[in-house]
Structure formats: structure tokens, C-alpha cells
């Protein structure tokens, strides 16, 4: 039984959407703090550019493409959910899930390669930032995938369709974080 509180909307914005925006706001500050710290270090340490030259830009670029494509699928899922078409939204959600999975697999391959070349998290501050920032982001990707898997069954049966939009918003946010990470960690040499 849901409390009446959950059904009210004094602002006119659905409660779930409001909460997801607050989640995203607090996440922005978390990544913001991490990236601002990185940028300050990057400015103070020109040698970070040399370390960054060892990152695999083409793998990062592929992952950018994969993640952006998965966001397209999230948008299509939202569109289907808006029309009340749960089964189609379900398929697109799993499309996004698959995109996230590809991202994580490619990332694992990339890290394995880098670690085998001796670039580990303890090598220096650049690699500490590299693994921590990308790792925190990857945790968010995995978290998003888990949520999509959990909600997908309800969505398939046309229940709680508003969740498709909410997870989509979160997924776009995860996407945008990567769009900041990719140039900062890979391209800025």
C-alpha cells in the first residue's frame, strides 16, 4: 500500500522524476569534485600529458560510441513507454543494457592491457585519477544496468512505465560524465 504522500504533486512534477533530478544533482557534485581535483593537478603537472599519451584513445573512442548508442536505445524505450507500449520499451531497455555490457567488456580489455604494460593505479597520481574516475564511472554504468534489469519485468507487463523515463535520465547523465572523462583522461595530451 502506497502512502498518500507518494501520490501528491504540489510542484506539478512527478515525485519520481523530481527525486531522480536530485540524485543526478548530487552525483554531479561527486564527479565534479573528482574532475575538478584532476583538472587542478593536470594544470600543475605538465608531465600528466606524457602519461596520458599511454592511454588507448581508439578504445576510449569506441566506448564513447557504444555508450552514446546505448543512450539512443534508452530514448527509444522512453518513446515506447510514453505510448504505453511496455513490450517494446522492454526490448529497448535490454538494448541499452547490452550497450552498457559492451562498454564494460571493452573497458575490462583496455584495463587488462594497460595493467599488463605496467600502468597500474599506484604508478603515479595520473594513473590513480585515471583508474579511480573511470572506475567510479563504470560502477555507475553497472548500477544503471542492474536497475534496468530489475525494472524490465514490470515494464514488459505495462506496470510502472514512468520508470523507463527515470532510468533513461540517469543513463544520459552517466553518458555525459563519460563525455567529460574521455577528453580529460585520453585526449588532453
Amino acid at each position, binding site marked *: 500500500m502506497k502512502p498518500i504522500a507518494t501520490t501528491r504533486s*504540489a510542484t506539478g512534477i512527478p515525485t519520481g522524476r523530481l527525486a531522480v533530478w536530485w540524485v543526478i544533482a548530487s552525483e*554531479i557534485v561527486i*564527479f565534479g569534485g573528482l574532475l575538478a581535483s584532476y583538472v587542478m593537478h593536470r594544470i600543475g603537472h605538465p608531465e600528466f600529458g606524457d602519461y596520458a599519451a599511454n592511454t588507448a584513445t581508439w578504445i576510449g573512442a569506441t566506448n564513447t560510441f557504444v555508450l552514446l548508442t546505448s543512450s539512443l536505445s534508452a530514448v527509444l524505450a522512453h518513446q515506447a513507454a510514453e505510448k504505453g507500449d511496455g513490450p517494446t520499451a522492454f526490448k529497448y531497455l535490454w538494448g541499452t543494457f547490452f550497450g552498457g555490457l559492451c562498454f564494460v567488456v571493452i573497458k575490462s580489455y583496455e584495463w587488462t592491457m594497460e595493467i599488463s604494460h605496467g600502468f597500474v593505479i599506484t604508478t603515479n597520481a595520473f594513473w*590513480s585519477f585515471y583508474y*579511480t574516475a573511470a572506475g567510479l564511472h563504470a560502477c555507475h554504468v553497472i548500477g544503471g544496468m542492474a536497475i534496468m534489469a530489475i525494472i524490465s519485468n514490470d515494464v514488459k507487463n505495462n506496470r510502472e512505465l514512468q520508470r523507463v523515463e527515470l532510468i533513461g535520465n540517469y543513463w544520459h547523465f552517466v553518458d555525459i560524465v563519460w563525455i567529460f572523462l574521455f577528453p580529460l583522461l585520453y585526449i588532453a595530451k
Partner: protein
Amino acid sequence: MAEPAQHAHPEHGDAHGHDHAHDHHDPGFVQKYLWSTDHKMIAMQYMFTGMAMALIGGYFAYCFRMNLAYPGMTIPFYGQMNASEYNALVTNHGTIMIFWVAMPVLIAAFGNYLIPLMIGCDDMVFPRINRLSYQIFLLSAIVLVASFFVENGGFAGAWTAYPPLSAKSQYNNTPLGAPMWVIAVALEFIAFLLGGINFVTTAMNSRAPGMKMFDIPIVVWMIVIASILFMASVGPLIAGAVMLCFDQTIHTGFFDPDKGGDPVLWQHLFWFFGHPEVYVVLLPAIGIVADVITVFSRKKLFAYKTVLFTTFATGLLSFFVWAHHQFISGVDPRMANVFTVTTVLISVPIAEMIFVYIATLYGGSITLTTPMLWALSFLFSFIIGGVTGIFLGASGADVYFHDTYFVLAHFHYTFVPIAILAVFCGVTYWYPKMFGRMMNETLGKIHFWGTFIPFNGIFIPLFMLGLAGQHRRIWSYENFPELARPEMYELRHFATVSLVIMLLFQFVFIFNFFWSLVKGKPAGGNPWQANTLEWTTDETPPGHGNWKDLPTCYRGPYEYSVPGREQDYWPQNQPS
């Protein structure tokens, strides 16, 4: 804001159905006390956990104060203390009092209890997230307490955890305690992020029909603004906690200059959160005081909107003052000037709030009940805390005062009013609603004076010691002849004896709290004749769902002594 009044009628119908559906099942012990999603029960969980942690934090203070005043003595209920133990005790005293007492009681307990009741709805908008929030908080408390029992004991790198002291176990000597401390703090932050999102969303969306923005009681506003400040400031420190934990456990190089890192980075991340955090705990306290002062002076809050806009200004400014903690950390002196200006500026809105409260008292019919005494003592003490802050905010003076007991006394004159005086103010004021019985007034007043007088007895000597150059974070002054003079020891004895007296008087409160649960005078629904919605519930203490028919709001919360009315109060739910 959309006008919510049109939803009023269908909703009332729902409330009936909802209530009947709940009459049928009788929850078991676990379901009722441990696994509840009811906001009132979660508030109690937070409150009792916070109070239990306060006993631990108070015990720690007793132990290290005894050691400072009587070095080398075998401390009753503790034993002999060494330097590492002293460091662990002061570190965890600070951490516990701020993160496991002030935060859970002021924000989580009062927020959970008051927000749904004061805005006239039946629960939080995300009851299960609310439960999860408490469970994560409980886990964080368990991790912290467990850290005292691992090899080499709890973290001993000071509550601000500056690297390299906090990052390298060869310096802090607590290889297991340090990462456990960081993990506990990070878990606690996650708990409060979840709780904060719930508070903000609930207050935004689930207000009673008719309750407009300026009809919301100040305390609810304050808890909501505090939650937003917390959300906006804690992120960098969460990132920082991950970085510090990695530095401690797998030896990454974030704060290690040898690896291209920077130890001062931590200070920025910590204080970017740490200063707004002061306001995160201050605002709920000042909100509680606002509500209590209006009720017991039977007057409308002087300048409701001013308080609100002042709070927004404080919140905004609080993000631009953090480097005043770092004047001697090698920050650019030009930057220090900027932060001096912002720091002195932030005292303006806070002073304004205090003036507003004094103006509210002026000409009111004041009743000196126990909650009112606590509220007045808050104002008195916080003024001292605020004024001494000016000395520290000015970079020139701070170079001398930094890291002395003057700093320590200053922030205790802000944090004790917040975490102790305002908490007792809130607990004694809402106790009748929470438990349906009145607390004993005589015992309440004995407890008040037994806390308030010794509190000043502790920290006024510490101001004097700080001015005399006594440094913080020294476990025994025996090795410093300049600081081991007999007159300094007299002041230390005075402070320590005062602390012991203050701690002993807390047993009066504990006795009163539990005795009144059973023997207290039945409170009735609205013993203080207050206006806000929590006093209008059908049952006291409120049952599941709070009201049979959820209330509609017709006016602001502070309509006391309105001319032409027979009663001197005017509940928010009474039609005109």
C-alpha cells in the same frame, strides 16, 4: 507552484480507504521496530542511535579531558592512557559528535518525524528508501564502533583527517582503524544523501492542500535547505574519501607528493564540505529554536520571509568560505583576503537571524518552559560562538589563533548549542507528541541548568588557555614547560570538572526521559497550544498514517495572539 487545493476532495476519500486497509494487520516486533517504513519509527531509530553514539562521544571527551587535566593518572572507568589512545579518542570524539550525533538527530530524526507531520501527509514519499537510509546509517555506526576493536585501535589521524597523517599508517599508527573510519564516514554520507533526497522531494511535492511555500514551518524549511546544502557540498568529499581510502589501502598517489599528488587537495575537498556542513547542522537547530520561541512567546515569528531569504544567502555564501580553515596551509595570501571578506560577510545573515528571534521575543508573553530555556540558551551561546568566529575568520588574527584551544572553544560554542542545546530543545518540545506524555518540568529544569552552566564552565577556560597559546592535539602538556604552568593546570582542572558535572547531569535527562514514558502526565493532542499541523493529529502519539483525514492548510504557522480572536493561537488546519 501549482495550486494543490483542487486535489483536496478525492484525496480525503483515499485516506479513508488507506486507513482501513491498515487496521487489519498487526505487525510483529521486527516489522514494527526494526523493519518499519513508517517515518516516525525511522525517526526514533535515528534518535536513539544518535543518543547512544552521544554517550560514546561524551565518554571519550571525559577520558581525554581527564588525561589533559591530570596527566599520568589512572582514569576511573578507563585506566592509563597513552598518546595513541589519546589521538584515537579525540579523533573519534569529533567524528562521532558531528556525523553520528548532530547529523542523525538534528536532520534525520527531526526531519523524519517532523516533515510529514508538519506538512500534513502520511509518510515520506519514498518510505523504503527511508528505511534503507537508516540501515546504511546503522551499518556506518557499526563499522565505526568496530574500528575501536581492531588491531592498534580506532583511527588516530584527527577528525579532519589531513594527509599524510591520515594516509600513511606509519604516521597515524592505525593501519586498520584509518580505512574503517573513512568507510564509515562514506557510508554515513550515502545514508544522508538518500535521506536528504527523500526530505526535499517530500517537502516539495507532498504538502497538505492549501499549504503554500510561505505556510511551511521554518523548521521544515531549514531541514530541507540543510539537506540541499549537504547534497551540494558532500560530493567532493565522497570522491575525496574514495581517494583517501585508496591512498591508505593500496597506496595510490592522490595526496602523496612523491607520486605527483598534493596533500592540500584533501584540505580543499574536506573544507569545501566541512564549512557548509556547519550550516547543515546549524539550520535545523535554528529552525527548532524558531518554532519553540514563537510558541512560548505567543507571537508571530518576526519577519518569516527575512529568515528564509537570509537562510538562502547563508547557504550560498557557505560555499565560498572554506579556505578560512587553511590560512596557514600555504594558500595564497591574496586568496586569504578574499576568504576573510566572505567569512566576515557570512556572519551578517546569521546575526540577522538572531536579531529576528530577539525581535520575536520582544513584547511577547514569554513562558519559561524547559524547551524555551533551551531555545534561549541556544541564542545566548551561539552569539558567543559567532562573535569569537570573527577573530578566526580574519586571516591576520587567525595566524596566531590557528590550532589553539581558542579555535576549539569557538567551535564548541557553536556545536554545543547546535547538537546539545537545540537537540534538547527539540526533544523536550516534541516529546509530548512523540510519546503522548509530558516530561517532568522540574527535572527538565534541573537538567537544563546542570548542562548549561557547566557547558560555559568547560569552554570559557579553554578560550583563556587558547589565548595563552595552548596548542590542540597534544596528549600531555608535561613535555612543554611553557604550557605546564600551575595556573594553566588550574584552568584545565576547572574545565574537566565542569565536564564531569555536565555529564553527570545527563543522567537526570535519561531518567526523566524513561520515567516520563510511563509516569508522565498524559499530554493530550496539543499541550503547548501550538499552530503547526503535527499538533492536530487524531491520536497522540500519531498512529500509522498520522491522520484519518489528511488535513488541509488554511494559513501560515505562526498566527499567535491574532487580535479579535478568543484563543491566542490559530491552528493551520482550522477553517477561517
